[in-house]
């Protein structure tokens, strides 16, 4: 196996990657992403890689990326969920109605009450979790294939959302709800730097802890220079990202209004960057939690074991039916979070929210290396997949590619990505 690999790349390069213990597939995806970015940057005369566009790209990716992390678990357990876009719409409709009608009118809290946003979010999360869990029960306990259950769900939940709102646009949404949308809620420059530094410290700490744990068990560790190089990569990536988001300045008239709202006058020549959007913070939090679940919890271990060999999992005493319910419930909850981000970004609930998201979400997970045969997939891969898809879509829009061609390209890329994946797995001898 090692022989065939060393034939395909120079031995020296391979040695470096091995020492760093970097995932070659991850590097491939990052490479593809960078290529896409550079290509569009050239085609748009440098408009693609501006802080402004990167900021927008980031906040446009969040909702699909959040759902893609859940789709990884679904596909890893050899299921599929076609209902995520519709479920997002139902959760969004429920949250919109809760904050505009149920809480202010029926419960008499009145508009603008502090409890409205948290109340709506909690109701939405519970709804998503229950609906997802119900679909999981149909799959796990009643044995209906996930494809059918969620194909039905695609139609059902889209129209439940319609029924709940009478097909109308619901808004404006609560002010504290809208901060989860992206541009309407950012940390500002100072807090973004603080977050970046804390995140970096955390990354370095876990790197150090991983090394220490290996040493206590007498397992081989990377040489120190490799650790240092990795640490440098983390630092550049995290702080560079923060720097980019901080470089996108809030427009002057908007800043003036912010100062006015505080009853102050804006000093002459004052500028302030947007910084890290709260929606991105949410995505980072979800990515960390989902990665921890995947790698460090029994639930995650059982998800991957079941995907690798369902019979073995069952014979090892894992309750695979209940596991299916849990996996779909997680997916449902994430649809609710994505619904929160998507409707907050628009600042209203629209009847067509989340339409076709199931395709984007599945594509993100698959482009990110989740194997449809089950058992294999990573959270970071799915997020990167979502980012690549979104870059393609917005890049083509900026270049002025006609809408039908955009979709043709995105569809083809999905198929091509899977083909490359199959070839890659064959080459490396992995499953």
């Amino acid at each position, binding site marked *: 196996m090692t022989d065939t690999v060393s034939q395909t790349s120079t031995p020296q390069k391979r040695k470096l990657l091995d020492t760093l213990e970097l995932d070659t597939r991850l590097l491939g995806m990052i490479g593809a992403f960078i290529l896409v970015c550079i290509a569009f940057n050239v085609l748009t005369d440098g408009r693609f890689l501006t802080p402004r566009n990167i900021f927008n790209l980031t906040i446009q990716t969040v909702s699909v990326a959040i759902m893609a992390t859940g789709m990884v678990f679904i596909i890893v357990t050899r299921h599929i969920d076609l209902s995520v876009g519709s479920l997002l719409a139902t959760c969004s409709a429920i949250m919109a109605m809760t904050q505009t009608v149920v809480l202010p009118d029926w419960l008499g809290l009145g508009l603008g009450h502090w409890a409205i946003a948290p109340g709506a979010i909690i109701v939405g999360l519970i709804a998503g979790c229950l609906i997802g869990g119900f679909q999981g029960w149909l799959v796990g306990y009643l044995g209906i294939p996930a494809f059918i259950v969620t194909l039905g769900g695609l139609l059902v939940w889209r129209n439940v959302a319609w029924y709940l709102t009478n097909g109308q646009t619901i808004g404006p949404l609560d002010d504290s709800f809208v901060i989860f949308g992206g541009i309407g809620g950012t940390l500002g420059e100072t807090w973004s730097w603080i977050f970046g530094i804390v995140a970096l410290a955390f990354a370095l700490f876990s790197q150090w802890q991983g090394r220490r744990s290996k040493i206590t068990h007498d*397992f081989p560790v990377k040489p120190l220079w490799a650790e240092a190089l990795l640490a440098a990569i983390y630092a550049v990536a995290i702080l560079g990202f923060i720097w980019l988001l901080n470089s996108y300045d809030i427009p002057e008239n908007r800043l003036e209004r912010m100062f006015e709202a505080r009853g102050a006058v804006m000093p002459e020549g004052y500028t302030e960057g947007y910084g890290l959007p709260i929606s991105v913070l949410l995505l980072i939090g979800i990515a960390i939690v989902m990665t921890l679940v995947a790698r460090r919890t029994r639930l995650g271990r059982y998800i991957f074991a079941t995907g690798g060999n369902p019979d073995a999992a069952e014979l090892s005493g894992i309750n695979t039916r209940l596991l299916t319910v849990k996996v779909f419930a997680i997916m449902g909850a994430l649809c609710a979070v994505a619904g929160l981000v998507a409707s907050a970004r628009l600042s209203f609930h629209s009847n067509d929210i989340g339409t076709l998201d199931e395709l984007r979400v599945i594509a993100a997970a698959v482009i990110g290396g989740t194997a449809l045969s089950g058992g294999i997939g990573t959270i970071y891969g799915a997020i990167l997949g979502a980012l690549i898809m979104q870059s393609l879509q917005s890049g083509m829009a900026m270049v002025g590619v006609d809408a039908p061609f955009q979709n043709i390209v995105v569809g083809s890329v999905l198929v091509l990505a899977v083909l490359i994946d199959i070839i890659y797995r064959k080459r490396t001898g992995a499953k």
Partner: protein
Amino acid sequence: MATEVRRDGTPLVEMRDISVAFGGVKAVDHVSVDLYPGEVVGLLGHNGAGKSTLIKCLSGAYQADGGEIYVNGEKATINNPRDARRYNIETIYQTLALADNLDAASNLFLGRELTTPMGFVNDAAMEAETRKIMGRLNPNFKNFTTPVASLSGGQRQSVAIARAVYFNAKILIMDEPTAALGPQETKMVAELIDELKRQGLGIFLIDHDIHQVKALCDRASVMKNGQLVGTVHVDEVTEDDLLGMIILGKQPEKAA
């Protein structure tokens, strides 16, 4: 066999009058077998005789349609693999029950992971334990971090065996454990069976190799078409007697 098995106490396992049907097929038809501590009982029979189905009732993979199971003289309810594990019944399946995408340690501890005080799985500790037990069972085993898909049949079988041994099985079920193995690895499994027997485990061994059954087992129960032909002490019969039971379904002249 050199060591005498004492059969005057209560048997470790008694499967009484077990029946399993799949649709119209009577896969197991009123079969009774038993097993004493420190004993290896071979299960013989053609493909489709019902051996795997019978022992799957004991390991919790199937539920019997009729009959009872007693463990240490007490009636046991085994509805799923978790129940079986509670009775210290461990199984090494014919089709290796490993998750190919996970490494050896994750497979060994599947369903019974070691966790940190915070409740996370403790991969380092599990790998260390795996290295320890593998050092004992199969010192040649070196691939601790790769998914088991990339391992040889013998290495995969060692993982399956290590799993049974690590958790202090009292009753071990081995369904054709050497079917996928080379001569070297087969020898390793045979030695292991002797070792476990000395430790007082009871072992049900399904094996096609009559030679091996004569060498390793104390008794052999032969099945044909879902029915029990008979149970014999292997020292009191010849290989031809056993073959006669398997092929013709007839008891040897001087039945045990």
